C-alpha cells in the first residue's frame, strides 16, 4: 500500500495472511474456555448414565445419595419432562430418560454437589431398577419387523420395525437413463461411524441471578438453538435466559445441538440458586456423540459410451443411534450433494435412517455427504479404470459447470472444480504415476463439493439467518456484535477482517463480541459451513451501514460527494485526490456529532430461488458451493497391511480467501481428519457398549502419522459471498477419504469396500478373503 495513497484500489486486509486475532490467547492458554470458569459458591454436577442399551426404568431411589454430605440436589426424568430435539420433527429427547433408556451412557439422573468427587461418589448410590429389553445394535437388526420379538426403540414410531425416516426422490427419467447406458456399475460400500474427537470436552456453567434471570455459558456451536431449547425445557421465557458461547475448543459438529448437561446445569442453578458447572469426561463425550453415522451405500451408475453419467441411483441406510438428532437432515444429505459435483442424466435417491441402541449420531464435518462421497468417488475410480480414462481428466470431463443447475435443481454459482482437479493432478504428476507405480505404492484422486450454509433454517421462520451490529467508538475502536460461536474455525477473525476491510481500519482496532444472546443479534450457529458466508455478509452490511453515514459527513467536510470517499489505512479520503483526507477517528466523531450514536446493523437471508419445489427440497440448497480435489500417495506394507500416507495434496475452491493462512489451516486440518477417518477411526461396539470410549484406544493419527500436506487455495469470485468468499471449514475433508481409498486400491490392485482401511482389511483384501460387499436387494423400503 503506497504511502499517501499511491494505491487506493483493492483491499488491504482481505487476502492478507495475517495472524488470527485470537491466536495468541489460544496458544498461550490465556483464552477462557467454559471449563476455565469458576464462580463464587459454584456447585459441580455429574450425570448418572444408563448401564443398559435398552431397558425399562422400573424405579429410581436416590434418598441414600441425597444424604451424602455435600450433595445439594438430585433430579430425574420427571423433573424435566419436556421433550426437545434440534429438529422440529424430532422432539424425542428429555434431559434425563423417562420410562426407558435407549443406549449405554444415556443420562438418567443428575446430581449436584459441593465438589465433583462428591457428586461422582453419590451417583454410585442412586438405586435404579431396570427391566432389560433386547437391544438392536445394527442396521440389519433395525430393519427387521419387531413382531413381539422385542420392543421398538421408540414404541410410538410409525413402522413395525426400527426405521426412523425414509426418503425417496427421483429427478429425471431414471429408467430411460439406465436404458441409455452402455455400462452399469453396481456396488455396495460401508462407511463406518466415527466421532468428532474435539480436544475440549463439553462444558457448561449456569448461574441464576437473584432477579431470576439465568445465564448459561456453554461450549456450544449454536447458542441460538440452545436459547430456544432452554426456554422450552425450563419453561422460562427466552427473555429471562442469556446464553453465552465462550471460545469453543473444537466442535466439528459435536456441539451443534442442545444436550443434557447444558440443560441440567441451567435447571440445577435455578433450583439451588447457586452457579452450577457440568464438564463431561472424555468417555461421556463419546456417549453424547452426535458423530458420523455408519452408512451402508448402494450405488448403481449408468455410463454412456462417452463416459457421461446417464443415470445414478444411490441408496443409503444410516445407523442413527437411539435418537433423532439432526438425522432427518443427515439422511437427505446422503443424497443431496452428489449431483453438485458432476452432471447426470437422471438421479434417484432412497435414504433410510434406523434407530439402534447406540449413542445418537448426528452431524460431523461434511454432515451426511462424506459417506456417499467416499462411495461415489471410489466407484468413479473403477469406472475410469474400466473406460481406460485418466481419473482426473475423467472427472473434469463430467464436472458440473459454473452457473448451472444440478439434476436435482440446485443452483450452482461459482465453481472451481476443474481448476482444483488440475491443480492436484499437476502438483503430483498424477497421470504419470496412477496405475504405474511399483506394487505397494499407490496414488489416488477424488473430488467433492460442499455447502456454504444451508439455504433454509432448521426451524421454519422468515427472519434473517445472521445479523450483526457494528459500533464505532469515539476513540476509533470498532466493535462487532454478532451471534456467532467461534469453535476454532476462525469466525472471530473473519468478522474482524471483513469489518476492517469495509471501514479501512486496522484489524487490531476491531473487537468482536460474539455468541451472547443478550448482546448480539442472532446468528444461527457454526454448522453447515455457513458462518463466513452468512455472518460475513451480515457484518459487511452492518459495516457499510456505518460507512455510508461517515461518508456523508466526511464528504461534506472534504467537499466531495459521499460516493467519492474511500476508506483505507485509518483514513477517509477523496478517491480522486488522496491527499484530501480525514483520519477515520475524526470522521467518526464528526458523524456521531451530526447523526448521534454511531452504529450500523446488517443481516443476511439467503435468496429464495436456490432449490426445486418438492418435499425434501429444503436440504441441499445453499447460496454457493465450495469445490475440492485431493490426491493422496500411499505406501502399503503387504506383510502387515499397514498403510502409510506419504503425501496429501488438497486443493480447495473457497471463493476469495479472506485470510489465506486460516484457509490453509482448514485444508490441513481436513487432510488430517480425513486421513484418520480413512485409516483408523471407528465407533466400535461390543456387548452393547462402546468398546473404546477414550482417546488412547480410539485411534486418531498423531503428528508422526501425518504426512506432508500441500494445501492449495483455489480462488474463484463468488458474487454473493462477502468479498467473494465461500467456505473452507468442511468441504476439504470430503475428498481426502476416497483419495486415500483410491490410492490404496492403486497400491494393492484390489478395492476395499469399507472404512476404515485397517491393516486387517488390507490383508483380507490381499488374501482374497474380503471382496466386494454383497449387493443386497434394493432396500425393502416402505414408502409412506
Amino acid at each position: 500500500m503506497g504511502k499517501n495513497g499511491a494505491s487506493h484500489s483493492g483491499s488491504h486486509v482481505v487476502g492478507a495472511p495475517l495472524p488470527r486475532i485470537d491466536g495468541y490467547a489460544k496458544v498461550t492458554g490465556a483464552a477462557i474456555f467454559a471449563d476455565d470458569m469458576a464462580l463464587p459458591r459454584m456447585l459441580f454436577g455429574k450425570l448418572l448414565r444408563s448401564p443398559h442399551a435398552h431397558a425399562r426404568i422400573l424405579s429410581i431411589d436416590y434418598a441414600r445419595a441425597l444424604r451424602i454430605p455435600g450433595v445439594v440436589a438430585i433430579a430425574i426424568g420427571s423433573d424435566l419432562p419436556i421433550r426437545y430435539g434440534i429438529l422440529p420433527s424430532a422432539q424425542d429427547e428429555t434431559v434425563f430418560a423417562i420410562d426407558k433408556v435407549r443406549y449405554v451412557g444415556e443420562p438418567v439422573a443428575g446430581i449436584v454437589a459441593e465438589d465433583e468427587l462428591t457428586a461422582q461418589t453419590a451417583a454410585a448410590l442412586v438405586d435404579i431398577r431396570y427391566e432389560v429389553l433386547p437391544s438392536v445394535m445394527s442396521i440389519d437388526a433395525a430393519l427387521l419387523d419387531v413382531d413381539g420379538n422385542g420392543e421398538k426403540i421408540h414404541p410410538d414410531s410409525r413402522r413395525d420395525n426400527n426405521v426412523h425416516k425414509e426418503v425417496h426422490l427421483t429427478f429425471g427419467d431414471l429408467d430411460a437413463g439406465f436404458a441409455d447406458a452402455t455400462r452399469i456399475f453396481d456396488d455396495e460400500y460401508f462407511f463406518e461411524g466415527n466421532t468428532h474427537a474435539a480436544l475440549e470436552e463439553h462444558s457448561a456453567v449456569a448461574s441464576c441471578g437473584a432477579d431470576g434471570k439465568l445465564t448459561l455459558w456453554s461450549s456450544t456451536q449454536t447458542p441460538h438453538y440452545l436459547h430456544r431449547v432452554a426456554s422450552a425445557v425450563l419453561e422460562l421465557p427466552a427473555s429471562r435466559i442469556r446464553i453465552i458461547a465462550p471460545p469453543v475448543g473444537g466442535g466439528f459438529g459435536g456441539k451443534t445441538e442442545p444436550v443434557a448437561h447444558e440443560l441440567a446445569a441451567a435447571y440445577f442453578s435455578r433450583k439451588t440458586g447457586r452457579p452450577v458447572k457440568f464438564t463431561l469426561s472424555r468417555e461421556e463425550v463419546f456417549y453424547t456423540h452426535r458423530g458420523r453415522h455408519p452408512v451402508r451405500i448402494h450405488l448403481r451408475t449408468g455410463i454412456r459410451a462417452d463416459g457421461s453419467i446417464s443415470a445414478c441411483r444411490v441408496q443409503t441406510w444410516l445407523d442413527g443411534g437411539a435418537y433423532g438428532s439432526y438425522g432427518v437432515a443427515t439422511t437427505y444429505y446422503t443424497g443431496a450433494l452428489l449431483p453438485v459435483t458432476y452432471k447426470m442424466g437422471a438421479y434417484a435417491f432412497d435414504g433410510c435412517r434406523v434407530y439402534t441402541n447406540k449413542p445418537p449420531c448426528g452431524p460431523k464435518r461434511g454432515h451426511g455427504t462424506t459417506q456417499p462421497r467416499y462411495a461415489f468417488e471410489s466407484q468413479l475410480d473403477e469406472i475410469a479404470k474400466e473406460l481406460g480414462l485418466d481419473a482426473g481428466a475423467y472427472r473434469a470431463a463430467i464436472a458440473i459447470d459454473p452457473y448451472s443447475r444440478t439434476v436435482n435443481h440446485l443452483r450452482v454459482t461459482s465453481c472451481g472444480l476443474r481448476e482444483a482437479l488440475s491443480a492436484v493432478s499437476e502438483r503430483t504428476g498424477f497421470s504419470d504415476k496412477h496405475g504405474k507405480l511399483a506394487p505397494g505404492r499407490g496414488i489416488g484422486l477424488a473430488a467433492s463439493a460442499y455447502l456454504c450454509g444451508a439455504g433454509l433454517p432448521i426451524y421454519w421462520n422468515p427472519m434473517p439467518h445472521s445479523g450483526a451490529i457494528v459500533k464505532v467508538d469515539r476513540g476509533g475502536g470498532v466493535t462487532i456484535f454478532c451471534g456467532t460461536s467461534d469453535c476454532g474455525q476462525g469466525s472471530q477473525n473473519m468478522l474482524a477482517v471483513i469489518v476492517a476491510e469495509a471501514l479501512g481500519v486496522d484489524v487490531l482496532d476491531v473487537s468482536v463480541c460474539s455468541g451472547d444472546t443478550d448482546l448480539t443479534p442472532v446468528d444461527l450457529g457454526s454448522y453447515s459451513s455457513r458462518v463466513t458466508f452468512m455472518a460475513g455478509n451480515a457484518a459487511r452490511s452492518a459495516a457499510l451501514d456505518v460507512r455510508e453515514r461517515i461518508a456523508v459527513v466526511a464528504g461534506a467536510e472534504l467537499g466531495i460527494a459521499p460516493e467519492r470517499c474511500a476508506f483505507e489505512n485509518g483514513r477517509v479520503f477523496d478517491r480522486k485526490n488522496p491527499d484530501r483526507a480525514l483520519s477515520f477517528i475524526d470522521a467518526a466523531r464528526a458523524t456521531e456529532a451530526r447523526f448521534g450514536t454511531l452504529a450500523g446493523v446488517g443481516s443476511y437471508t439467503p435468496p429464495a430461488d436456490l432449490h426445486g419445489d418438492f418435499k425434501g427440497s429444503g436440504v441441499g440448497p445453499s447460496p454457493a458451493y465450495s469445490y475440492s480435489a485431493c490426491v493422496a500417495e500411499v505406501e502399503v506394507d503387504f506383510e502387515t497391511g499397514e498403510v502409510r500416507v506419504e503425501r496429501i495434496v488438497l486443493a480447495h475452491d473457497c471463493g476469495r480467501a479472506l485470510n489465506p493462512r486460516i484457509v490453509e489451516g482448514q485444508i490441513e486440518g481436513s487432510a488430517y481428519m480425513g486421513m484418520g477417518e480413512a485409516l483408523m477411526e471407528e465407533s466400535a461396539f461390543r456387548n452393547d457398549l462402546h468398546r473404546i470410549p477414550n482417546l488412547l484406544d480410539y485411534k486418531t493419527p498423531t503428528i508422526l502419522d501425518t504426512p506432508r500436506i500441500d494445501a492449495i487455495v483455489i480462488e474463484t469470485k463468488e458474487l454473493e459471498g462477502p468479498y467473494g468468499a465461500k467456505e473452507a471449514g468442511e468441504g476439504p475433508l470430503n475428498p481426502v477419504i476416497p483419495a486415500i481409498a483410491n490410492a490404496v486400491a492403486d497400491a494393492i490392485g484390489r478395492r476395499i469396500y469399507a472404512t476404515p482401511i485397517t491393516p486387517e482389511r488390507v490383508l483380507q483384501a490381499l488374501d482374497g478373503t474380503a471382496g466386494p460387499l454383497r449387493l443386497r436387494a434394493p432396500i425393502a423400503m416402505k414408502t409412506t
Partner: protein
Amino acid sequence: MLRLPAFEFQPARSVDEAVTLLGEHGDDALPVAGGTDLYANMKLGLFAPRVVVGLRSITALRSIRFDPQHGLRIGALCSLDAIVREPAVAEHYPALAQAAAMVGTPEIRNMGTIGGNLCLETRCNYFNQSAEWRKAMGYCLKRDGNLCRVALHSDTCKAINASDTAPVMHAYDARLSLVGPRGERTVNIREFYQNDGAHANVKRADEILTEIALPLPARGTRSSYRKLRLRKAFDFPLLGVAVAVATDAGGSCTQARIVLNAVGSAPLEVEAAGAILLGTHLGEEIAADAAEEVFKAGKPLENANASLLYRKRMLRVIAQRTLEDVIAPLR
C-alpha cells in the same frame, strides 16, 4: 471430568523411608514414581489407595552407571527419556533405547520411569475402563469380578503385559533389585514376572524396585526391538519382539534370546526359536525358521485393539523383521 479419588500423598526421601511408609500402611498404600500409569488407573477407579507413597524425591535412584567390566546399572527412577539419551545405552544396549523411545509420547517419557515401565500394570480392554463402563459390561477377574471376560473358563486373569522395556530387559538378562523391610533381594527378570494378569510380578506390596542391572553383553551381541501398533506414537504394543544374539569370531551364533511381550501376562521367551539359531551362521532362512517358532509360541487373546487373528499372524512378520535387524549388519 474424571477426578482422582482422595488420597494422602506421602513423599519419601529415601528408599528406607519409602519402604517404611509402605510397610506401615500395608495394603492401603501404593508407590508412585512418574504417575503416568497409576494416576490414570486411579481416575478409572481401578485402584483406590488411601496413601500414595511418592518416590520421585529419592534422587539416589536416578543414576545410570556403565562399567565396561560389569555392565549397566540403572536406577529405577531414571526417566525413559533419560535412558533414550544415555550414550552407553545406545552403544551397548541399543534395543533398550529403541524400546524406551517407543513408549507413549514425549510427555510420558519425561515423567515415566524405567521402574514404572517394568512394573506397568497389566492391561486389557475389559480392565482399563471407567467404573461405570465396567459396571455396565460386568466386572472381571482382575478387578471386582470373578470371571475373565477374555477367556471365560480361565482361572487366571489374561491381562497383557504391555511394557515395551520388559522383553528387552529379559533379552539382556536383567537382574532387578527389590528392597523391602527385610532388606534387599535380587531376582532375575525371568523370575520377576508371572503369567497371571492379576498378580503380574513377584514384587511384594511393601517392596520397591530400586535398580536394574544389565550384564555386559557378550562380544558381538546385536539386539533389536520392534512393536506392532496402530499409530506411530501414544500406543501400547499389540505385540512386541525383542531379540539379542551373539556370534563368535567365525560368525556362528553363540547366544540367542527372543522375547515377546503383549501376548500374555508376562514377557515370553521363545526358547525354541533361540535354539534354532544357536550354532548357525545367521541367515534369512534360519530367521524364518525361528520366526515360525515365535508364531507357534505366541498366543494372543481378544483383549487388545486388533483382533487376535491379526496379532497372531503378525507374530511371524514382526519376529522375522526383528531378527533381520540383527542379521543384516552381519552380512
